C-alpha cells in the first residue's frame, strides 16, 4: 500500500459491456503494488472543469499479467447533466500508451482472507468491480463462494463471460445473474438466471442455511434493498460487509433504528413508486411521478420549504437527505458542498428520506 502517487501506463483497454471498459495499468517503474481484493486506487486526473486536477476512486477488479486492472462505467449525461468527468476522461481520452497518476491501493472494504466461511458476493451494476477481484482471489485459493450480480440486461452486463469461464475451472463457485429487463437476445440459463430484482426467495434457493460472509457493493437503493432482505433472512450485521458506489450512508436495519420511519406496506416489483419520508413532519408518502420535483411534492403535502428561484440557481431550497438518493433533473449551478440537495430540481431515485 502506498500513500504516494505513482505513474502508470495503460497497457490494455478492453470494452467489457456497452457502458463499462477495463484498463490495465502497469507501473512505469517497479512492480504493481500488492493489493487486497476490495481495495481501490485514487487517481489524479487533469480533467477538472477549470483545469484543476480532480481525484477519483476506482476499485481494482484484478491483477492481470502483473498489471492492476480497473473497470470503469461511463457515467452518462442525463437531460441537462454533463457526463461524469472522471469516467468520461477514461473512456474518451485515455488509450493504450497513455500515462496517469494513482495512489494506493486503499480501502476498508476488503475480502477477509482468513475467514473459513462460504463467501457470497452480491453486486449491482458497476459494483461488481471489487467483487470480480475477490472472485479471482477466492478461486485461486480454491475456496467456495457464490457470485451474485444484478444489472439491467446483457448489453450492460460486464465480465459475465469472465465469471462464467471461472465457474468452468473452479468447481466450488456458483454464479447467479439477475437481469432487470432482459433484451430479446438475452437467453435464460445461458445469459441470466432470474429477472426483475433479487428477492429473498432467490437468495434462499441459492444459499442453503449456513453461516456465510456477505459482501455487498452497488448503488444506494440496491444496497438498502439487499440489506433488508438479508436482515429478513436472519443474517447478522457482522456478517455483512459493504461498500457504496456513490453517496454513502450507513445501512441500518429498518425495524430497529429509532430515527427511521416504520416500514410501510407497498407492492413489490418494478412498478412500485418510491416512498418519500419527511422526518420532521412525520409524513411518508408514495412519490407521484406526475409532480415535477421534490419541492412541489413537499408543497402538495402541505409543507412549506424555503425557496426562491425554483431553478437550481440559488440554494434556498437545499435540504438534507438522510437516507436514499435523489437525482437531478438538470445540472444545477452548484451542488451544495455539504451533501444536501436542491429539491427544486430533484426527484427521488428510490426511497428517500428528507429532513423536512
Amino acid at each position, binding site marked *: 500500500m502506498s500513500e504516494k502517487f505513482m505513474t502508470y501506463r495503460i497497457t490494455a483497454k478492453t470494452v467489457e459491456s456497452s457502458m463499462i471498459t477495463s484498463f490495465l495499468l502497469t507501473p512505469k517503474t517497479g512492480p504493481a503494488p500488492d493489493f487486497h481484493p476490495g481495495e481501490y486506487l485514487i487517481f489524479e486526473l487533469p480533467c477538472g472543469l477549470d483545469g484543476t486536477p480532480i481525484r477519483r476512486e476506482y476499485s481494482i477488479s484484478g491483477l492481470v499479467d502483473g498489471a492492476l486492472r480497473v473497470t470503469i462505467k461511463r457515467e452518462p449525461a442525463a437531460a441537462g447533466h454533463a457526463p461524469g468527468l472522471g469516467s468520461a476522461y477514461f473512456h474518451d481520452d485515455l488509450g493504450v500508451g497513455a500515462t496517469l497518476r494513482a495512489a494506493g491501493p486503499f480501502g476498508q472494504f476488503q475480502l477477509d482472507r482468513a475467514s473459513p466461511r462460504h463467501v457470497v458476493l452480491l453486486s449491482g451494476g458497476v459494483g461488481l468491480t471489487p467483487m470480480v477481484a475477490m472472485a479471482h482471489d477466492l478461486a485461486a485459493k480454491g475456496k467456495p463462494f457464490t457470485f451474485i450480480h444484478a444489472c439491467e440486461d446483457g448489453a450492460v452486463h460486464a465480465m459475465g463471460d469472465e465469471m462464467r469461464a471461472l465457474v468452468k475451472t473452479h468447481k466450488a463457485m456458483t454464479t447467479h445473474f439477475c437481469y432487470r429487463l432482459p433484451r430479446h437476445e438475452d437467453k435464460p440459463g445461458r445469459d441470466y438466471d432470474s429477472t426483475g430484482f433479487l428477492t429473498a426467495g432467490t437468495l434462499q434457493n441459492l444459499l442453503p442455511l449456513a453461516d456465510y460472509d456477505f459482501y455487498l457493493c452497488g448503488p444506494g437503493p440496491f444496497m438498502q434493498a439487499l440489506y433488508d432482505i438479508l436482515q429478513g433472512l436472519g443474517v447478522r450485521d457482522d456478517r455483512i460487509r459493504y461498500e457504496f458506489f456513490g453517496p454513502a450512508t450507513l445501512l441500518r436495519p429498518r425495524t430497529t433504528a429509532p430515527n427511521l420511519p416504520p416500514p410501510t406496506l407497498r407492492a413489490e416489483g418494478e412498478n412500485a413508486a418510491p416512498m418519500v419520508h419527511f422526518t420532521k413532519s412525520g409524513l411518508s408518502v408514495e412519490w407521484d411521478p406526475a409532480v415535477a420535483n421534490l419541492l*412541489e411534492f413537499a408543497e402538495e403535502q402541505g409543507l412549506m420549504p424555503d425557496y*426562491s428561484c425554483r431553478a437550481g440557481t*440559488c440554494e434556498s431550497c437545499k435540504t438534507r437527505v438522510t437516507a436514499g438518493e435523489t437525482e437531478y433533473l438538470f445540472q444545477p449551478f452548484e451542488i451544495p458542498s455539504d451533501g444536501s440537495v436542491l429539491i427544486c430540481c430533484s426527484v427521488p431515485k428510490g426511497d428517500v428520506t428528507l429532513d423536512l
Partner: protein
Amino acid sequence: MLDKPQIDADLSDPGTFDHGIPQAAFAQLRATKGLAWNPLKDEGPEAGFWSVGRFDDIVKVSRDTETFSSAVGHIQIYNIDDDALSARASMIDMDPPEHTRLRRLVNPGFIPKNIRDYAPVVKARAGALLGKMQAEGGGDWVAGVAKPIPIGIICDMLGVPTEDHNLMIEMTDYLVAGTSAAPLDPTAYGNTTPLRLLPFNSPAAHGLREYARRLGAIRRADPRDDLVSKLVTLEVDGERLTDEEYTNFFRLLIFAGNETTRTAMSHLALLMAQHPDQFERVRKDRSLLTTAVEEIVRYSTPILYFRRTATRDVDLSGTMVRRGDRVVMWYASGNFDETRFDNAQSFDVARPALPFHAGFGGGGVHTCLGAGLARLELAVLLEEILDRGLTIKILDKPEFVNTNFVNGIEKLDITFGQ
C-alpha cells in the same frame, strides 16, 4: 484617462428602446471584450455604469448578492440618496438576510399549489375580454386585454376590491412613466413629498402608499384570506411589518404583478401577428403551450434590466469593476446570447425550456416571485385565444413605452382573423 470600452448606443437613454429591444446594440455589447462602460453625462464627467450583456456574466452578477448588492445603491440605473432609498426599500432593494426575511412572508402565496386556483379566473376574464373585443371587431389589445387581466389577478391576491382595479392601473402606469424622461406633475394624487424620496420619483407612488395604508387599516380590523391581510397581521421575529415596510411591499407587488405580465401579454399578441405559423403549431399541438410561453418571455424580456452595485473591487469578465461601481444586468441582451441559445434571434415555440432564459432574472434569490403566476396567466390566455380559433393582425407599428427599464407596449391596435 482609463480606457473603458463603450458601445455606440447609450443604454441609459429611453430613446434607444423606442423600437423594442435594441438587438444591434446588444450584439455589440456581447461582442465587447469585458464589460462596456456607459457614461451618464447628466450626472457628471466620471459618472456611468458597467453594462453586462453576456448570459454567463449576468448569472455571475445575479447570484452573488454579497459582491453585487441590491441594497447599496438602487436597482434602477439612477442613483438615489440613502434616505430616499430606505424610505422606499422593499425586498427587491435588499440583500440576504433582510431580503430572506421578507421574501419568506410572501413565498407561500405563490407556490404552484396556491396559484393554480387562479387558472379558471384567468380563463373567465380572458374569455370575457376577448369576446368583447371580438364583438367590437378589434381594438387596442393593451387596454382591452393585456392590462386588465394581470391587474385583476394581483388585486384579487392582494385583496384590492374590484372597483379599485382601474385606479391601480392608472397609478402603476404613472410609476413606469416615472422611469422615463417625461416630467410629471409633482402634486398628482395629493402628493406633497419631494419626488426624490418617492419610488420611481413618481407622485403615483405616494398615491399607492396612501391607498395601501387605507386598505391595510380596513383589513387589520377585519382580516380576510388575502395577501394584504397577511402582510398587516403577520409577525416576523415577533414584530409586525412597519407601515413603511408594508406599503413598500404593496407597491412592489402591485407593480411587479401588473406591469410585467401586461408587457408579456402585449408581446404575445404582437408575436402572434408576426409569427402566425409558429402559433399554428401550438394550436395543433397544445403540448407546446409551455415552451411557447417561455419563448414569449425570452423574446420579449419584459424587464430589460436590473442594476447592482459592487461592494468590493472585482474582476468581472476581465474588467476591473471598482467598489461602488454600478453594474447593470441587461437581461434583454442575455436572452439573445448566441453562445447560449441556438438561433437566438429566431422565435421558436418549441425551443427547449433548458437552458433557461433570464426573463425572470439571472438566477439567485431575487428570482421573480411571480414567475409561476405569470406563466399560468400567459398559458391560459394563449389557450383561450387558440380555443377560439383566433388569429391576430396588427394595424399599426406598436408604440413602445418611453423607458429603458420595461419593454412595454403603450398601444397595439389589432383586428382578429379567423
